[in-house]
């Protein structure tokens, strides 16, 4: 049975299922207990599972992440919440030098079944240190898997897949999606890690987007359809590994590619998608340059108008696609 719940509720449901199914599953993070998490994602899970399994950590991101790594190495299955993805900057050591590499450095002697959740993105007026999209850092690191769910359905299914996964899985959740509602089945199901989703089929141009930009791309596609432009919208969902085949197949079909993402444009995921296409056979199908719409080359400003201007918006996508199809690019 499926019903409408929010993205945040879908994530909580996945954690609830994991906690009830397996004693070894624990939640760790700052203020995820009685407070329910800064974005109310863990909510009241502490009432059901107690403070031993829904653990408030001190404000110690590096140590907390390291504890999660050590616990995962020795039999627990921690789900670690960063209060904001920006604070991952404090824990890169444990995420990148330890979690991502331990298995390899030990020649396969251990696995690290660790899930980390990162509330990310701008739009909340929290300024430069609470609004970043840093997923590209982790997508650059072998040993990790990196997800960006865009719907309540995927948020639950991908999190359950991540929990089942024997290796570290990093999940970037856009803060503005938490309240978004959508159809979500009750009970357990998983969405495969590493598969993109074609959210809208189209013939004229492929728009490959991530996170909240998928929704902006779909909105743009609607408007473009009115003027007869048929855009295909691909939700990457997973940026490590990348679903090469789905992207290439789309480009072979449409011959045009626009990448849309919120992270800083330079070296954001769109760079990898564009380069991946440019070195593939799909290159020969390209009829136009590959465009990227990414975040501005600046920190996220506080003022709301500046903040909006710092990331791609629906009109930007519409204009870019028009320019591309009408040969202005």
């Amino acid at each position, binding site marked *: 049975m499926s019903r409408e719940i929010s993205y945040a509720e879908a994530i909580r449901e996945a954690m609830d299922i994991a906690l009830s199914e397996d004693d070894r599953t624990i939640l760790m993070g*700052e203020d995820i207990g009685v407070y329910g998490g800064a974005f109310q994602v863990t909510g009241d899970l502490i009432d059901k599972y107690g403070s031993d399994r829904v653990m408030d950590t001190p*404000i110690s991101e590096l140590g907390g992440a390291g504890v999660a790594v050590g616990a995962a190495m020795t039999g627990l299955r921690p789900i670690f919440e960063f209060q904001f993805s920006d604070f991952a900057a*404090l824990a890169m050591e444990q995420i990148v030098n330890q979690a991502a590499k331990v298995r390899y450095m030990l020649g396969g002697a251990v696995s690290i079944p660790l899930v980390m959740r990162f509330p990310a993105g701008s739009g*909340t007026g929290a*300024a430069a*240190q609470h609004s970043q999209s840093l997923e590209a850092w982790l997508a650059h690191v072998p040993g990790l898997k990196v997800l960006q769910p865009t719907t309540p359905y995927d948020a639950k299914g991908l999190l359950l897949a991540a929990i089942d996964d024997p290796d570290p899985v990093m999940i970037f959740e856009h803060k503005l999606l938490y309240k978004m509602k959508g159809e979500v089945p009750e009970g357990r199901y998983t969405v495969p890690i590493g598969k993109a989703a074609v959210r809208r089929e189209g013939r004229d141009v492929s728009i490959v987007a991530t996170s909240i930009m998928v929704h902006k791309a779909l909105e743009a596609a609607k408007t473009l359809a009115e003027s007869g432009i048929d855009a295909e919208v691909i939700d990457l969902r997973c940026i490590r590994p990348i679903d090469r085949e789905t992207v290439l197949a789309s480009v072979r079909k449409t011959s045009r590619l626009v990448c849309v993402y919120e992270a800083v444009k330079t070296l954001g995921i769109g760079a990898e998608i564009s380069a991946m296409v440019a070195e593939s056979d799909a290159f020969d199908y390209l009829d136009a340059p590959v465009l990227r719409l990414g975040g501005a*080359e600046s920190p996220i400003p*506080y003022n*709301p108008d500046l903040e909006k201007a710092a990331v791609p918006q629906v009109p930007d996508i519409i204009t870019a696609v028009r320019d591309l199809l009408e040969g202005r690019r």
Partner: protein
Amino acid sequence: MTQMSDANDPWAIRNLTPETLRESLRKMYLIRKFEEGAEDSYTRGLIHGTMHLSIGQEASAVGACVGLSDSDKITSTHRGHGHCVAKGADMGRMFAEFFGKETGYCRGRGGSMHIADVEKGNLGANGIVGGGLPIAVGAALSAKRLGTGAVTVCFFGDGANNEGAFHEALNMASVWKLPVVFFCENNRYGMSTSTERSTSVKQIADRAAGYSMPGVTVDGNDFSAVAEAMATATQRAKAGDGPSLIESMTYRWRGHSKSDRNRYRTKEEIADWMDRDPIPRMAEMLIAHGVMDAEGVTAMENDADQTIAQAIEFATNSPAPNVADLTRDVYTRPLI
């Protein structure tokens, strides 16, 4: 109106001029009313984002800064309005920053969590808990190397004391004998997490011994006690004897931020602390020692209300940033 002070008088009465004492009370009112104004503006939808109010902690901020000059530096926190006012900021520019205006201290780029006032020595609030700790040590290193004689006061919270940055900063400051005072505003919670549940030591000042520096715990709602502890620590710093750790026990009346449901503390606890309001306490001390009279206090409070009203008006009428300037100030010079 002044009178002879005797040895039993509070430290502040004995050591600070009546002008300084009055100015300190005035700043406490300004902080309180600035934040009430900010809260009100938020409710009226004039501010987006969130804010962290320090209502109830005013004696701590003002007591910590009363002995500082503009050349002395502070590093502030996400709960930094009080520090900013205590260091002498202009209310209009503070509100303008809140409102995201070009006339704000950060030209609308930073907002509440990044308000700074570099001319007055406030190196800025910080959105990263513990982020200011090593930066303060760096400022103290500059002061020592450049021989400015300035002291740096590093504000941080009880929650921040569990960040690795706290450990690394205090250790380096001590090894290098730098002129810095680590001022912990212990309001008993890091967001929802009490010191009991987060911190493996009774008083944060107890951690000073691990860095061979003096550590004291003071009543953070007692302006005089805070000012006295700071005077000792500042002297030590300026004498070249190195850093100190001051733990100021206080309390935030409001929730952690706008999204707080206060699930983690009782109404009684909050009420109990509201009874210990540092502002009337300060006013009463000044009246009791003839530094000012009741009418003077009332006048001062009304005056503060006026200042805030004007500040809000200034901010409201200030121009917003030009969207074309989005990437200005990312770098000092244009990139080639």
